[in-house]
C-alpha cells in the first residue's frame, strides 16, 4: 500500500480534493501527502474509516513555520546613467509569502501500518491562517492543535476548545514562529557573557556580575 495508491483512492472517494505527494529527500523516506484544507475533514474521515486503510490513530500533529523568503534576482535594466542609456544590472528583491504548515502523522492500530503523513498549508502567516480542525476525526489532535494554535497561531476552525494551552491566557505572540522576538523583560540570571546580560544590564544594575 503505497502513498500513490492512497492518493488515487482518496481522490476517487473524495471528489474535488487536490492531493499532492511531497517527496522527502532524507534517508528516512517518509514521504507525505499534502491535502487541501477544504476537503481535509472528509479525507481524514475516509482514511480513518476505509476498510483497508483504517488510520485510526493520529500520533503526532505538528506545526512548521515557513516564513517568506527574500528572493533576489539579477535583472538587466536599461537606465539613464549620466545622460546615456546603459544596460545596468540591478538586484531586484521580492518577498515570497510564507506559510504555516500542519503535519499529521497517522498510524493504524488495527492494521499496524503507517505512518502516512498528511500536510496542510495556510495561505499566509498573517491573516489567512485558518485550517480545518481534525479533532472531530481524531480526538488526539485536540491538545496538539491547541498547541499549534498557541505556538504558531494557526486557527483551527471547528476545534471544540481552541484556547492557549502552554502559554498563559493573554499572551500576545506565537513563540514558535521563526520571526518571534523574545521579550527582554523576563527574569534573568546574570550569566557571565552573552547579550542577555547586556540587555539585562540595561534594565537594572546587576548584582554580582562583572
Amino acid at each position: 500500500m503505497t502513498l500513490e495508491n492512497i492518493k488515487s483512492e482518496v481522490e476517487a472517494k473524495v471528489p474535488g480534493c487536490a492531493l499532492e505527494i511531497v517527496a522527502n529527500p532524507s534517508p528516512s523516506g517518509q514521504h507525505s501527502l499534502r491535502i487541501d484544507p477544504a476537503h481535509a475533514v472528509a479525507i481524514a474521515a475516509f482514511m480513518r474509516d476505509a476498510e483497508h486503510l483504517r488510520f485510526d490513530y493520529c500520533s503526532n500533529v505538528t506545526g512548521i513555520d515557513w516564513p517568506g523568503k527574500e528572493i533576489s534576482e539579477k535583472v538587466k535594466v536599461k537606465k539613464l546613467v549620466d545622460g546615456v542609456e546603459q544596460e545596468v544590472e540591478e538586484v531586484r528583491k521580492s518577498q515570497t509569502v510564507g506559510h504555516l504548515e500542519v503535519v499529521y502523522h497517522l498510524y493504524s492500530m488495527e492494521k499496524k501500518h503507517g505512518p502516512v503523513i498528511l500536510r496542510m498549508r495556510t495561505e499566509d502567516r498573517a491573516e489567512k491562517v485558518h485550517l480545518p480542525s481534525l479533532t472531530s476525526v481524531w480526538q488526539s489532535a485536540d491538545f496538539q492543535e491547541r498547541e499549534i494554535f498557541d505556538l504558531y497561531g494557526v486557527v483551527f476552525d471547528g476545534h471544540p476548545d481552541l484556547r492557549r494551552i502552554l502559554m498563559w491566557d493573554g499572551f500576545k505572540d506565537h513563540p514558535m514562529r521563526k520571526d518571534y522576538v523574545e521579550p527582554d523583560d523576563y527574569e534573568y540570571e546574570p550569566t557571565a557573557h552573552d547579550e542577555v546580560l547586556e540587555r539585562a544590564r540595561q534594565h537594572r544594575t546587576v548584582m554580582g556580575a562583572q
Partner: protein
Amino acid sequence: MFGEGILKGLAETARNFLGSYVSKKRLTTVQYPEERLPQIEAYRNFPFLVYDGEDWQQGLRCVSCFICEKECPPKCIFIEKSTDKKPDAVGKPQFYPTVFNIDVSVCMSCQICVEVCPFDAIKMDTDFELSTDNRFSGLLWDKKHLAKSNEHYHKIHPTEAAVVDAQLAAERAKVAAKAKAAAEAKPAAAPATPPPVPAATEK
C-alpha cells in the same frame, strides 16, 4: 474472603519492619555526612580545566579554541583568548585563555564540552559539595577555580586519565620528533625562537 489481601499486606510490612533490623541490605539509607558511598568512577558533575605540572597557569592544557563555548548547549562557558602564546600540553606554542568562566548555575553537566574538546583540556569533576552564599558570583567559576591538576584527574577518573595520558604522551613524542627533524633540517637557524607550527587540527 474479605481481608485476606489486607492481612497479606500487613504480613509483608511486618517482614520489612523486622527485616530492617536484621539485614543491613534492606536499609538503603546512607547517613550522608558521616557515611559516604564509594565514588563511582564515571560520575560527573561540573567541568574543570586540566593542567600539567606544578604551575596551573603555565600547565593549562586549554588553547582557547572556543569549540566548547560554541557547542555548550546552555551556553555557560565564556572564553577570552590571549594575544601571546605559550607551549601547550604537547609542546606546541598555542594561545591560552586569559578568561575562562563557567557559570555553574547554568551548566547542566552534560559533558558535551568534554566530548568535543580536541585537546583533552576540559574534564568533568566529581565534587558535589558546592554550596555557596552568593548565587551569582559564587557560582560563576573563573579560570583559577576551574584549574585542577592532572593528578586530581587521575584520582577521580583513573582509567580515563590513563588513556588520555597515553594519547598525550604519543602526541608529545610526535611533536618532539617533528621539532627534532625540523631542527636537524635547519641546523643553522637560530634556536632562540621555536618554528611556527600550524594550529593543531588533527583529531
